[in-house]
């Protein structure tokens, strides 16, 4: 029984890690006023780049960084469209969601002699499991933490960093000011476009990390269906988490935990259609968030392009 609890907790961590990275990406850009529904596309290209560079270099960290970088390039494209050209941020996001899988497929065929799947990375060249030797095999600690990859811990560190920057530094104050009232921030000498460029690019970097966490830790290869809806779940988690990094993290953990419980319950022959179980994470997340979290409001200027001449 204890082992089962450890496995549920372990599954929770495994499941939520890519989501946490991606939802942080959402938090960063939306707090500065740029809606990013392109998280999914950015995750896909991140997952592909991570797996490809990880495979060819044999170095998971290089792969992980490349995944982030590829996501960052997409984030930059999103910024060019949304900040410089004041394009509709939803439309640009959708374009990125098409571009990500398309480009990943295209590149995959170039790098892997026509195949749409990347080759599997050897276990020794995957992300390390820092605590693997701390616990004996088949112990509580092993199932909970020992079998977890470095990306899991990195995700929590990233949450802390983003929280710290947003709420404990003057840069964070500027970012949030730009998201709430860009005109006011502008009159006080904050460079709105500059801030939005950086936040949107970093939003892509985090989403790319999320994708790479998928293809370098959870599995060891990329296939086009690897990222299927994770970006959108991350987006929802960000909204449920009230656009706050720790809130988004909690929402991701909740979703991951519900998946863990689903897998746990699924092993018993309960005579309940498995489809009902499959719904559990979504239903549970919805119910808990509606019942306990309550109303969440976006930053006031979220989704509105900023142009100096506009009177707001």
């Amino acid at each position, binding site marked *: 029984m204890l082992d089962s609890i450890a*496995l549920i907790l372990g599954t929770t961590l495994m*499941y939520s890690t890519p989501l946490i990275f991606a939802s942080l990406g959402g938090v960063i850009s939306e707090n500065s006023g740029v809606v990013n529904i392109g998280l999914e596309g950015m995750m896909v290209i991140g997952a592909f780049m991570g797996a490809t560079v990880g495979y060819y270099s044999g170095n998971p960290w290089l792969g992980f960084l490349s995944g982030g970088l590829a996501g960052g390039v997409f984030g930059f494209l999103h910024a060019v469209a949304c900040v410089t050209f004041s394009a509709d941020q939803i439309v640009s996001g959708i374009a990125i969601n098409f571009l990500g899988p398309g480009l990943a497929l295209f590149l995959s*065929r170039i790098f892997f002699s026509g195949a749409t799947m990347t080759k599997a990375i050897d276990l020794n060249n995957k992300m390390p499991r820092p605590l693997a030797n701390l616990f004996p095999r088949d112990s509580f600690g092993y199932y909970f933490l020992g079998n977890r990859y470095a990306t899991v811990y990195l995700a929590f560190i990233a949450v802390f960093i983003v929280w710290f920057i947003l709420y404990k530094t003057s840069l964070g104050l500027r970012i949030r000011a730009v998201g709430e009232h860009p005109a006011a921030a502008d009159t006080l000498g904050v460079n709105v476009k500059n801030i939005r460029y950086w936040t949107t690019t970093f939003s892509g970097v985090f989403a790319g990390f999320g994708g790479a966490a998928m293809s370098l830790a*959870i*599995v060891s290869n990329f296939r086009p269906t690897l990222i*299927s809806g994770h970006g959108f779940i991350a987006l929802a988690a960000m909204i449920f988490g009230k656009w706050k990094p720790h809130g988004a993290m909690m929402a991701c953990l909740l979703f991951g935990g519900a998946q863990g419980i689903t*897998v746990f319950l699924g*092993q018993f022959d309960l005579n309940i259609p498995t489809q009902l179980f499959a719904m559990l994470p979504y239903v549970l997340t919805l119910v808990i968030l509606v019942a306990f979290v309550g109303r969440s409001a976006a930053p006031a200027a979220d989704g509105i392009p900023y142009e100096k001449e506009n009177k707001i």
Partner: protein
Amino acid sequence: MVKKLLVLLILAVLVLAGCGQAKKETGIKVAMVTDVGGVNDQSFNQSAWEGLQRAEKELGVTVNYVESKQDADYKPNMETLLDAKNDLILGIGFKMGEALSESAANNPEQKYAGIDCFFDAPTPNLVGILFKEQEPSFLVGYIAGKMTKTNKVGFVGGMDFFVIHKFHYGFMAGVKYANPECEILVQYADSFTDAAKGKAIANQMYKNGADIVYHAAGGVGDGVIEAAKEQNKYAIGVDRDQNDLAPDNVITSAMKRVDNAIFNLTQTLVNGQFPGGSNVVYGLKEGGVDIAPSSSKHVPAEILEEVEKIKAQIIAGEIIPPTNAEEFKNFK
């Protein structure tokens, strides 16, 4: 202009050289439409194309393919091949079913066939090609039943419906046939894409004492195989030889030989025995399914010998692997 002439000249030389070979030309043209995986997907499409290439070599038919970039391409691609006056147009993958039956109804003179497609009432110019997935599942189940050290094996299914039940119950019967004492853990992921869920389920099965897990779950299976790799346990692949995903852990795979099925079908076309208006099911007997060639790496030779005997029995109809819960209950 010079360039164009040069190209023409080269083409002419090539054509003449082609004529020089002692290859019988039937003048029959066969072409296929891939699904979004593309022709080098290391899976169905690639296998199908290999089958056609073999047909070109051995039967003297002319072959070609068109790749689909998205689901919406299926119909236009079929139109393209129709305009190119092919004798037979093949659609690869169950997603092609609708486009195929519609095209077949609109063009009664044109022959069509769909891999992994079942047609309720196929028109006389249409053939559905299916596989007896329960047969290779039975064989890998037998291997699992013989090789398990814990007397516990697992099965991870994609979605809980009749197609996956063929894998599920074929496997269970194979395990029980080899080792009646063996316990089988079964769990469905309700997804064909969620690799993390596959990994979580497999981790749980390994924790609960299973040492070999078979999956029939597409992308979910990547997670299953990953779990085997991490826990240093065994996994069994599906559809193609998945040993490359984890060379030390994937002991065998239940394969569909799409290439053989397509070669066979082309042969019927050449012989004038095209089975139009029906669904054809390929099993071990027709070479349509098998276990992976890489099995010999991990599976002891004596077990493989027994598997060969069982293959013969299945082909002879002495063993009929079950396809659903009912048949499994009555098995043996």
